């Protein structure tokens, strides 16, 4: 074997295997060590998947984050390569602050150069550095949009950024586009969503500030009230509320046709409010599912008050109760999947399972 080993001398299969375990920062660094590695990484047959490229758009700055996951010691570790552009409001100069491995020099001042042009250039550089990679998610994060005056402009910016990335990456190499933003007022959400074409969003992520929740101690109620105007959200397949329980904002949940919430711990007291919302039809969400590691509601305790549930033969551990609503012909279907989730659905009474009885929700006082 060669007495002075070098990474350049590795066979192709080994290099490919090695790249699979490298985060992007390392891939970029390796590509810059020498021409051999650069050419190897740029070769079109590796197809390294990129988990996400996030463009963070603030008023006077843009940031790009390239995310990968590399499993080490049994843990999926998130790795980022970042690049930031900060525009000086007075001079319009752009300060470019790349990650250590991106490009040198680390900080460059570019006179009057538009951030988006720089972004495009850097995306092209990134594409070269990471080879022919598949981009799983392209995400534009507008952060807090409550200060944005012209929403149409925001929509145009989003489309422009999507066009830039698809121009560089190629439409067929991007799996999904994603838009992320914070709303403080429902009216903003409504207006913004009217501005963006429906159906372009596959995933909506709401951070805790925009949604209601229970305070750990004060147990402020969750409201699923109104805002049924936002038909644009109906097309969303998945809604994530990360750390839903951790922030005490008793604000209203924006209406969604389907809502899926990951809850840290779901207690009987939480159920009372949700039932009230649903059964009185304050909520316009038709389907509300809560997933939790700790659902503190059992089939036993619920059956004592409401009688036997309907059990699904095809799905053991799934129990269903039906509750009356003020609207004739409609009932709330409450499903408990033991240890996993609870969900509410507003359905027509004719859709009820055979032999089921409709209960009166008022008896929920016991909880």
């Amino acid at each position: 074997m060669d007495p002075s080993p070098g990474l350049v001398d590795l066979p192709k299969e080994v290099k490919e295997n090695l790249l699979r375990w490298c985060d992007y920062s390392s891939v970029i660094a390796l590509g810059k060590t020498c021409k051999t590695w650069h050419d190897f990484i740029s070769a079109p047959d590796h197809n390294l998947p990129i988990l996400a490229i996030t463009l963070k758009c603030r008023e006077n700055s843009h940031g790009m984050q390239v995310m990968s996951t590399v499993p080490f010691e049994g843990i999926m570790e998130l790795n980022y390569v970042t690049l930031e552009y900060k525009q000086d409001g007075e001079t319009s100069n752009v300060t470019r602050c790349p990650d250590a491995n991106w490009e040198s020099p680390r900080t460059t001042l570019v006179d009057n150069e538009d951030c988006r042009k720089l972004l495009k250039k850097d995306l092209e550089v990134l594409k070269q550095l990471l080879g022919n990679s598949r981009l799983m998610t392209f995400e534009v994060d507008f952060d807090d949009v409550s200060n944005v005056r012209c929403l149409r402009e925001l929509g145009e910016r989003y489309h422009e950024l999507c066009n830039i990335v698809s121009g560089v990456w190629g439409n067929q190499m991007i799996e999904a586009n994603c838009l992320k933003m914070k709303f403080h007022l429902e009216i903003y959400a409504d207006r913004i969503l009217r501005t963006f074409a429906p159906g372009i969003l596959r995933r909506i992520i709401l951070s805790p500030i925009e949604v209601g929740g229970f305070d750990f101690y004060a147990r402020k109620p969750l409201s699923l009230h109104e805002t049924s105007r936002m038909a644009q959200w109906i097309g969303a397949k998945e809604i994530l509320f990360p750390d839903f329980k951790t922030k005490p904002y008793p604000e209203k949940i924006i209406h969604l046709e389907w809502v899926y919430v990951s809850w840290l711990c779901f207690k009987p007291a939480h159920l009372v409010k949700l039932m009230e919302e649903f059964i009185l039809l304050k909520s316009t969400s038709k389907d509300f599912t809560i997933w939790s590691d700790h659902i503190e509601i059992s089939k036993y305790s619920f059956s004592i008050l409401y009688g036997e549930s309907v059990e699904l033969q095809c799905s053991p551990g799934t129990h269903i109760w039906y509750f009356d609503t003020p609207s004739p012909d409609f009932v709330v279907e409450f499903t408990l999947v033991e240890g996993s989730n609870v969900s509410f659905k507003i359905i027509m009474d004719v859709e009820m399972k055979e032999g089921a009885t409709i209960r009166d929700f008022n008896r929920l006082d016991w909880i």
Partner: protein
Amino acid sequence: MSSTEQGTSSAAPAEPTTAPESAAAPEVPESFYYVHGKDKVVHKVSAGALQHSALIHGMISNLGYTEEQAKANPFPFENIDGDILQMVVDWCNQHKGKPTPPEDTNLPKQKEKLFDLVLAVNYLEIKELLTYCCKQVAMMVKGKSPEEIREIWMIPTDAEDEAAEKEAKKRAGKEAAGETAAAAGDAK
């Protein structure tokens, strides 16, 4: 290394004295094969352990050796250092018939050893161990600048590479010229 028998060998392999102990003795007697590296030290390895290596497994299946034949004809891996082959054999024995864990923390930390192990494992086609090794190399690359990687893994810069190439060409040119001159001299 408990299950590896060592001895020195030149033309004929050294006679291994003891067989590796299996924790649970199989009902059917296990067959053993012999391998040696650059240092000619012969390692006795069970067929079960050798299944990790696609290369050796293929050789065994094709040859259909008996125990005696296997003993008389150890597989020679002259391109693999003895200590590296030892590591490989140990790993194969440790993971014989077991599902491989997601991580392996017993890999060498010195880059020269790791590098040799990578090449050996790749040659012997031991997929799982190669993955562990590559993870280890990736770990060593992580967080390093291109300059640091170059230094650690002895990657010449493009300029150095070009200079070395030119030098090599020059040397080859000179040698060729020398040979031509010598040939001309001989002809005279």
